């Protein structure tokens, strides 16, 4: 009985210590981001990898998500003879919820996993130790620019997802199912307020931070072997997905 309690206690202590390490990793990445010299060229490079290179997958998923919302929204709204509200329903859903969450999922899969694998490989091949031994802070060099880049790129990707999603819904609702184009846009114009856009912006910003934090942490401290890199990559994606959904719930409940 005592040994079982001891094991539970040790497990709990390890988990709490792990969370503390993760939090302190995030704090040092943010703190070092503001320390001179700023790594502008690295920030631009990572905006390209996080933002530009995720653009096609975000645009494609946004378009199809919007089209599905067009079909499902039309099906549901028709039951109440409210098809004309399709534009409003789609835009609200995308701006407040689906845009930030799904584009964050896409970036996690496309870029977050690559971040974890790259840093994990750098750990396994002693490249992170090499930076450290050259008196170059590896968190400042490898993590802080990615954090800044993701904070800049995520809201823009989400905005693109939202716009293309609304267009997808328009294509299905107006072109295929015969909803009036005027009522589609008029409903949207009447129901969308600044707070809807703002809450989506805040979510996308925080999801960007979650993705780089988790994926960089998992890669940075990956066990230095092949299975360690694959394990870090898997864990980073799963944990990012879960944290995005959990944090989304809290933000929604606060900002509703």
């Amino acid at each position, binding site marked *: 009985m005592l040994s079982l309690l001891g094991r539970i206690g040790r497990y709990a202590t390890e988990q709490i210590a792990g969370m503390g390490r993760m939090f302190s990793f995030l704090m040092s990445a943010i703190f070092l981001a503001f320390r001179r010299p700023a790594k502008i060229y690295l920030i631009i490079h990572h905006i390209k990898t996080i933002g530009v290179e995720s653009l096609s997958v975000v645009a494609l998923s946004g378009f199809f998500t919007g089209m599905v919302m067009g079909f499902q929204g039309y099906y549901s709204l028709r039951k109440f003879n409210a098809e004309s509200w399709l534009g409003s329903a789609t835009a609200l859903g995308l701006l407040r919820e689906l845009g930030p969450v799904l584009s964050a999922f896409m970036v996690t899969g496309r870029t977050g996993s690559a971040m974890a694998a790259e840093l994990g490989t750098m750990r396994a*091949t*002693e490249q992170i130790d*090499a930076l450290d031994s*050259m*008196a170059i802070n590896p968190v400042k060099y490898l993590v802080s620019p990615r954090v800044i880049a993701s904070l800049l790129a995520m809201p823009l990707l989400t905005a693109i997802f939202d716009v293309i999603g609304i267009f997808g819904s328009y294509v299905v609702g107006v072109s295929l199912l015969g909803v009036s184009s005027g009522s589609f846009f008029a409903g949207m114009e009447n129901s969308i307020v600044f707070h809807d856009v703002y809450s989506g912006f805040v979510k996308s910003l925080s999801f960007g931070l979650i993705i780089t934090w988790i994926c960089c942490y998992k890669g940075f401290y990956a066990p230095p072997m092949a299975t360690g890199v694959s394990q870090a990559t898997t864990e980073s994606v799963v944990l990012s997905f879960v944290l995005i959904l959990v944090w989304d719930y809290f933000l929604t409940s606060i900002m509703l």
Partner: protein
Amino acid sequence: MIRVVNLHKGFRGQQVLKGVNLEFATGKITTIVGTSGCGKTVLLRHLNALLRPDEGEVFVDSVDIVKLPQKELYEIRAKFGVLFQGAALLDSMTVFDNVAFPLREKTESTATEIKKKVEERLEQVGLGEMGGKLPAELSGGMKKRAGLARALIMDPEIVLFDEPTTGLDPILASSIHQLIARMHATFGFTGVLISHTIPQVFDISDYVAMLANGVIEELSPPKTFRASQNPVVQQFIQGKTEGPIHVL
């Protein structure tokens, strides 16, 4: 000068270093030998505080680096150059950029000064034409040479070599040894070398230290080392499985 005092280090309950005491002579090459897994790399990583000990001190120029805060530690690390086992070149950069990297990050040198110095170092290690290649396009020996050029680019006082000849054929290993000796003669750094390529490594060493069972069993010039009556040293030199060193 580097001095290690009563160094203890363990991982997950397994004690690797059990009280290492060792002093590295300034301007000389000291080679640490020992069986695979005996803790040579662990010891080396303590010398520039890439690892922190469970107990004991590491003095670099009379400063105990074990508990130094990061800013002061980075000032001490500027004295070091390190050649890692796999060279640890940044694989997204060319050989030239890898060698130039410390200069770009840590000095105010102009692009012309950096170019001149990097080309000089690459020439010295025999990679004059290879600056534009990526690490993935280099052979094992070339990677080590590029790693050595990067380790020497800041004119360090101390250079740590972590098994520089591992994975190389005897001819390449010998050429790397000669290169280290030549660079040492040119720059006069204090070298700490980890190796188990004996007896070849004796030719370039001023001192040889034997790490076994978590402690330094012997520290002496190569000639004395070879003639040592210490059974641990003799077992290692003769490659015997029977003796005081426990082999699984």
